[in-house]
């Protein structure tokens, strides 16, 4: 094993940009394996023998095998693998690291981003819509808030991965990953409670609120219907998908409205 070289800025930039396409060839056989090889490739050119050398070819073959993680945290693995390969670590250790980090990088990312950050940012933007923000304002608020976290996570992952190499696991025990999902879920619950009624009112439009066309159309009735529907769907959690039920309900309603 040797000390890894300091990655040139151009190499780091190339790896970082390629990480955005890490799932470009995602499939049910190797999952993101090809994407990991694609992302780490600029660093592997620095191996003895350069691009096309024996070390380079062996490393590419190793890195294109099965791998899966949350896409935003793939940088942790790519950084660590780049460091390990450039330090000429034992290939068995690198393979074991790849196998071991799939689960944690997947579950931590899913909890933090898909179940935490994404719904929180989405609900924040829905609240902005409910308060009357412009179309551009709503879209920019969502994209700005979401991608601030997204880009920060990708940058952090690559930096800490290359810094710590195969000993990167403790970094995933940082408070953000342990307590972040719970804080984000609480924030999403509070924002969601405010945002959904306001968003419903925003979509219905003011003309149907102050002067409802009939008792069925007043905002309180629509809100009550939403709450009851939400309660029923929550009880069915895992057994039925609400959006599929909505497709059926809308199809029947459209049919009723055109053949009546």
């Amino acid at each position, binding site marked *: 094993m040797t000390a890894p070289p300091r990655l040139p800025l151009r190499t780091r930039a190339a790896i970082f940009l390629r990480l955005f*396409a890490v799932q*470009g*060839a*995602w*499939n*049910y*056989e190797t*999952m993101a394996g*090809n994407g990991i*090889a*694609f992302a780490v490739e600029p660093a592997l050119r620095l191996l003895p023998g350069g691009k096309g050398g024996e070390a*380079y*070819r062996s490393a*590419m073959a190793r890195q*294109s095998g099965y791998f899966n993680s949350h896409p935003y945290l793939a940088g942790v693995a790519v950084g660590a693998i780049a460091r390990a390969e450039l330090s000429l670590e034992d290939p068995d250790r690198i393979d074991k690291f790849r196998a071991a980090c799939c689960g944690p990088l*997947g579950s931590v990312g*899913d909890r933090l981003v*898909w179940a935490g950050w*994404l719904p929180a940012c*989405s609900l924040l933007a*829905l609240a902005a*819509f409910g308060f009357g923000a412009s*179309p*551009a304002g709503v*879209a920019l608020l*969502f*994209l700005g808030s979401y991608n601030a976290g997204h880009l920060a996570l990708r940058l952090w992952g690559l930096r800490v991965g290359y810094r710590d190499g195969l000993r990167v696991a403790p970094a995933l025990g940082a408070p953000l990953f342990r307590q972040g*999902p*719970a804080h984000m879920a*609480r924030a*999403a*619950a*509070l924002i*969601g*409670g405010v*945002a*959904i009624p*306001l*968003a*419903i009112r*925003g*979509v*219905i*439009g003011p003309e149907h609120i102050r002067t409802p*066309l009939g008792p*069925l159309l007043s*905002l309180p009735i*629509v809100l009550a*219907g*939403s709450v009851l*529907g*939400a309660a*029923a*769907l929550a009880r069915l959690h895992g057994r039925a*998908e*609400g*959006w599929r039920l909505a497709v059926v309900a*809308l199809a029947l309603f459209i049919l009723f*409205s*055109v053949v009546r």
Partner: protein
Amino acid sequence: MTLVAGVLPLALLGALLGLDVVSFPQAMISRPLVASTLAGALVGDPARGLLVGVVLELFALEMLPFGASRYPEWGSASVVGGALYGAQPAGTGGALAISVFAALVTAAVGGWSMVQHRRLIARRATAMHGELTADTVTALQLWGLTSDFVRGGALTALVLALFLPLTHELLSVWTADAAVSHALVVALAGAVGGAAVWNVTHTFKGAPWLLLAGLALGACLLVAT
């Protein structure tokens, strides 16, 4: 403007946003709030695009893209919804219901097409990786990205080519009141979105109470503003 000339820019947008869902760059420009607004802007009415985007976003909260699970494809679907609704004059009864229905069907077909696309990549990977080089890795990556771009664009174009004339026909014989249509769509979306927020948050200590507090605050704001 011919159907082809109208659909082409929207298909391009659908291709770009379909790509964003998984392949590149996953910046969530494919989320309905953004994608439908962009589609609405492309047909001349971003505000109506946003309106349908809000409805679809509530549905989309239910199916978050966890791991290798199968989920609807909201990028192309949101372009379809935003374009269909944005293209109808304000006050058209039934336009929201038909646009949301078309978008949800597109999301389902899009999810299925993503699965087929992934199977196609797996077959190609097996064929290409016999002689593994940097070139084959890059080629597979580029092929995956390009084919996903084509998938999203073709899906958007096909659905719009079907639903633009169909929407016109359906609206010409539409009998239900516009307000009733709006109310039904919004109630469905609110129910799905509300259940999604509950399902994602309720296992965390204190979150159900915060949801209730948020609902109370939201109700106060509804009355006060």
